[in-house]
């Protein structure tokens, strides 16, 4: 690599790392999915008025996926909700343990919902897959909401 090219590369990388990123909700797509998620959470917790155990928002390009780890309690029923912005055409949610897939929603297009009651308290994997996005990246939001406790 020529010295000038190396210099340009280093300058771009250093500046890229140094540019300050805003810390709170920044663009309309992120705000949009946060509003949608809030509505979805309100819908599943109408009577219980519970707050989500876990929420996550972020951008994904088409065919990309993100995995989160979350500890779910035995005997508690959870709703796992996913929403995505208006440019997204298909979002998939998957719940798994370290070794097995437990539940998947491929049919709800932009509002996948899983309902699950763990038989053991342990760490579960929630995988969100951006299957269709007309304008990359598409913003998604996921929430895990406890909706009731069942006797073991």
């Amino acid at each position: 690599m020529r010295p000038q090219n190396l210099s340009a590369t280093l300058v771009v990388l250093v500046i890229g790392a140094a540019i300050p990123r805003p810390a709170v909700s920044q663009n309309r797509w992120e705000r949009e999915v946060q509003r949608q998620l809030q509505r979805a959470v309100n819908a599943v917790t109408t009577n219980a008025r519970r707050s989500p155990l876990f929420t996550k928002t972020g951008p994904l390009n088409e065919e990309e996926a993100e995995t989160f780890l979350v500890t779910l309690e035995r005997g508690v029923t959870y709703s796992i909700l996913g929403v995505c912005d208006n440019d997204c055409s298909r979002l998939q949610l998957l719940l798994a343990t370290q070794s097995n897939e437990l539940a998947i929603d491929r049919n709800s297009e932009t509002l996948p919902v899983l309902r699950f009651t763990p038989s053991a308290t342990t760490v579960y994997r929630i995988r969100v897959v951006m299957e269709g996005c007309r304008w990359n990246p598409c913003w998604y939001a996921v929430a895990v909401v406890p909706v009731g406790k069942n006797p073991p």
Partner: protein
Amino acid sequence: MLASQEDNHSGRPTIIVRGAEESPVAVRYIEAVLDSTWHALGLAETKIRIAVVIELAQPRNVANRPTPPERAAYLAPDSTDRTTCIALLPAGPYWTRYLLGKREAPDAWFGGFAQWLQAGLGPCAFYAAYGTPGKPVRRWLAARNWDVALFLGSRGIAGERFSSLDLLGDSRYSWYWDQVYSFRPATVACLAGRSSGCRAAVLDGADAASPAAGPQIVRSERRWWRGQRLLPGERYLSDVAREVGRERFQGFWASSLPVDTALAAALKQPIGEWTEQWERRFIAPIRLGAAAPWGVTAVALLLGAVAVLAVMLTASRRQVR
């Protein structure tokens, strides 16, 4: 280093000016010019933010001055941040002096500073307008160093009528042909009006493997027009986008289909035919192979005829004893 105040909801690029002299006036001026450019491109709040870093040239009398980057460079999103594209633009001595108020620059000079800034947005302008490309388009553009998406706009990379074809010069001179034949065969075939050549020139790199993991940096070359695979490639995708409309271009850009399928679907026409017609807007088909000028041909035929006549005359007077 001076930076503009970012307005998160306008979508306007962040501007950072690096140089030995700090000039808030220059930053405000660049902000105003970039605002106009942004509106001219029809952009508002975008999914991919742009940061423009303008590197002012160092004064000659600064000791141990670092080697400045010669050409623009672009850091694609997903390199350090999912949603930010960074354009590094070395201003060079001319625009540095202009920005610091030490010289006037006529607007007519290659479209003036606004044109320079718009051209400098390069691939970042496409990211802002259409988001991150789908994987096949991303691989294709990376394989050819974004040569078909260097400029987004309707006026040409350096003014209304200018394109990289103008840098070839005049076809009456031999160096024009030296340059033409330094291009790839498909590029030359497209210049000659062969649609199969145009198709090959456009799809060059479409079957490339994914680029290596890590930061994706697009660097413009010193004489970028010499390495083009399609002429004037710098405006190709910009013209495609304008011709097919936003929705169809967006479908191509984000598609997970192979590039040839997605582009033909957007164009609603075979790629080779569309591109051959597009190229005709800028240049008449060149003639390939040996082609002697008419005058030289006529003289040669005349000399040949004279020689034949002389032989016939000699033969008719010849006596055999």
